[in-house]
Structure formats: C-alpha cells, structure tokens
C-alpha cells in the first residue's frame, strides 16, 4: 500500500460525457493491480468526494470495466460545458487530483 497511482496506471484522463457530465478513466498497466483496486474498493465515492471537494450525490457512477482493466468515474459537471463561468469546454484537464491517489 501507499505507492502513487501513476506507477500502476498507463492512462489517467478526463473528458466530457456529454455537456453535463465529466468522466474520468484510469486504465491500469496490470490486471493484478486492477483486480486489487476493484476487490478492495480502493477507488470509491468517499475518495472522489474528498479529492474534488464535491458531495457524493454529485458522483454519477464508479464502474470497473474488465476488458480495459479500467475504472471509470463519472461526476456531474458543476457547470455545463461552455456555460458562463465554466473553464474547460472539453473537460480534458480535470484529472489531476486523481494523480494524488496512493494504492
């Protein structure tokens, strides 16, 4: 336990899932690590809520996707893409807090 997630992940990215949600993909290098994260629920709503400072009801889903050794986290966008005051129309630069996860 306790190593930075970037040692285990080959992709950590964020993107729009339509104009009203942001989705994050973490794709693990190794199936064993993927299984360990999945079995031990190391990525969960409490963690995401803390990392992004959002209420848990703003987290749409956390889904493990077997074929890609990936976990997908989807949250409600605080503002719809391109709305006044919004900052990232493509939603492609919101992944960074995930880099601080340790597993």
């Amino acid at each position, binding site marked *: 336990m306790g190593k930075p997630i970037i040692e285990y992940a080959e992709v950590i990215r964020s993107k729009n899932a339509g104009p*009203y949600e942001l989705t994050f993909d973490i794709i693990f290098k190794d199936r064993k690590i993927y299984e360990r994260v999945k079995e031990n629920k190391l990525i969960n709503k409490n963690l995401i809520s803390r990392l992004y400072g959002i209420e848990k009801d703003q987290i749409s889903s956390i889904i493990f996707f077997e074929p890609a050794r*990936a976990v997908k986290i989807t949250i409600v966008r605080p503002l719809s*893409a391109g709305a006044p005051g919004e900052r990232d129309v493509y939603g492609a630069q*919101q992944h960074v807090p995930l880099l601080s996860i340790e597993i």
Partner: protein
Amino acid sequence: MEEIRVLAPTAILGYGFPLESFNRGLKYKPDIIAVDAGSTDPGPYYLGSGNSFTDREAVKRDLRIMIKAAKELNIPVLVGTAGGSGGRPHLEWCKDIVVEIAQKEGLNLTVALINAEFDKDYIVDQYNRGNIEPLYPVAPLDLNEIISSTRIVGQMGIEPIIKALDREVDVILAGRAYDPTVFAAPAVKAGFPEGLSLHMGKILECASIAADPGSGSDCMLGILSKDSFILEPLNKKRKCTETSVAAHTLYEKSNPYELLGPGGIIDLRETKFKQIDNRRVEVKGSRFVKNEKYTIKLEGAKMIGYRTISIAGTRDPIMIEQIDSIIADVKEMAKENFANIKAEDYQLFFRVYGKNGVMGDLEPKSKLLSHELGIIIEAIALTQELANTICSFTRSAMLHYGYDGRIATAGNLAFPYSPSDIKTGEVYQFNINHLLEIDNPVEAFPLEIIKVGGENDG
C-alpha cells in the same frame, strides 16, 4: 453478403488523413466510406450560432478525396452530423461544399440530405403531450427553455439513413446523428447484427484514435461479418491492441457496458476483444437491446448575450499575495459603478491562471505558488456595447487599483495586446439535453434527394 468493409478516413471530417493510409484502405475494396463530422464537445456556440467548428477548406479537402474515390468504386460516402452540430445551417454549409466539389471535379452526384433540426412549435407540442423526459443529470424540461432556445436538433438513429441508402445515392449528408449510425446503417441494411454494427461504428467514428499510437487524423478499416468485426489501422505505424480498442470503448461515455443510443442500448457485457495478429483486433459478443419506447436525444442551445474579454498578467508578488481580495474589491467597484444597470443584465468573471484558472471550485490546491498570474476579465451582457462597457471599466479599475502595500504605482497589469479588450460576440449556452419519444424514427427526420454537379449544373 459474407462481410461488409467500412473505411473510416478520419475522426472528424476536416481533421485530415494521410493519402497513403487512405489509398491502402481503398485496396481493401471498401463497401462504404463513412465519417462523423460533429460533436457537442466544442461547446454550445456552434450549435447555437449555426457555424461549423471545422474549417471549410479542410472539410472540402477531406470530402473531395473521399467522394472522388467512392465514385470510382461506385460506393456511397456517408457523413454524420454534417457541419459539426447537424442543424439546418450546418447541413446547408456541408451541402454547398459538396456542390462545389461536384462542379469542380465534373461529377454527377445524387445527394441525400437528412434534416435533424426541429421547429420549436413541434418540440412545444411534444412537450405538451408529455413525450419529453430529462436525460440524467439535467432537470425536467421547462417550456420557457424550449421557447428561448436558438436551435434544437435531435440525434437520428440508423433508420433515416437506411431509407436514404434505399434511394441509391452517392453521398448522404445526415444532420445530427448518433455517432455510430453512418457506419452501422449500411451494415444493418445488409442484414448484419445491429449490436456488432453499432459497436463497430462506435469505434470507427473516431478512426485511428482506437489504435496505438492513436490519432484522430488517420484512417481505420472495419470488417464486419455475421458474428464479429475486425479493426485494422491503415497506417503501418499504428496497431490495434486488445487494450487500445477496449480502452477506446469506454472513451467519453459514462457507462462502458451500456451505450445508450436512439431506440436502444449497445450492451457490451458479453463483448470480447481478441488480438488476431500484431495489428488487428477482433471483437465479438456486443448486442443491441431495443428499448420499449423509441427515444432520441434532443440537444438545444440558447443565446444568452455577448462577450468581451481582456487578457492580462501580473508579476508583482505583493499583488499576487492578495489576488482574491483585489478581485473581490474590483468586482464591488464595478457593481457600484453600474448600480443603474439591472444585475441580471450582465455577468462579470475573473479567471486567474496560475491559481485555479483550469479547475475553479474543483481545484484542490489552496496554496498559491506561482510567481506570475494570468488574468482574464470577462463580461457577458445583453448587448455587445454593455459587455464592452463592463469589461472596459473593470480592466481600468483593476489596472489602477490601490491595494494594500502597493509600491508599483504605475499600473497593476501587463497587457499582451492593444486593443486590450476583445469582443468575442454572441454567447450561447446548452439548455436542452432531453429524450424525446417518437413514433416513427424515419419520419421525424425528413429526407431530401438532390442532384448536383454535371455539365448543365451551376
């Protein structure tokens, strides 16, 4: 028909592709050439304004190559979400490009135009009948939102495209279409399973993004048979791997196992990805599950005003330390100065790059470490003149604001441009993201067939 071959030249029409890859694709004797031309990702401006987010010359370059090759092979070219957002002006814009190509190249083309923009009174009527439901996470639709919208489009399914294919056309330009449809429709029409056809379309619509290394500007081939499809990148530098294809399947979607589209979902619970050689992947098991009701997704945008921005930087550590309180004070100055203007007539934003410019409230770092900050002052108002006025006042107020401990009294901001204030024009916002239940997936999207080009035309 044992198999159907689909050539996907590029991820978005206008993003380009190498001729070498495209020509390699032609050697496989594809049955169709298809391309997705749009997305909501560039934001609400393009849907609302009727403009394309792709460049006209770039779109023309891609289309000319595709249409000439397809004409020689006597196969159709299919374009989904023409013009970027798939409304009437977008479709018209794309049609004009095809007309120019036909005339320039001396080609006679039969072109199908499928409209996907709905009149507001139709949507109001559907709303009154209770046929519109919110798509999570948006709220139920409000009648005022329909009335205030500038443009509403619906994502068509494969049915209107199949109807166009029945007319033996050379080119199909579809308005707003669910991304996989232009790849899947010819396959479904030829009797291939809907689930595999749509899943293949879902991957091909991004062309070589699903390869390793990925690229949105390179070609991919999909070969569909009755119980699987094979993906092959057409640039020898790229390969498809089980991981690259599986990883792409979850791209931009909230749930990778269930992809909701017009009329049903693509169910990927049983999907298997298999490496068949070092560059090709075979996919099996994807199913289409029809919904009880046929629904399509509506997308709408409304105009909310005009924008003026001013871009500046600050390098002074005394100012940087107090940036939050300075912004709060300057905002207050603007509020007082424009006390005669109704608060709902304008909005004022500061974006501070080097602090939380990218993430705003989601930013977890609270400690400021930057030695310089980029600041964008942004005014959105009911008229361009008012936006200019608010931005101008705020810019000068911040430039000369006397914050605590100030020793650099000549000016607080470094402007990279003169003029310092930039009018960016109309501002739109997405306001409809709902599901509309329709009785007939074909009739909702009217088809028009036109003949273009030839000696006597234009």
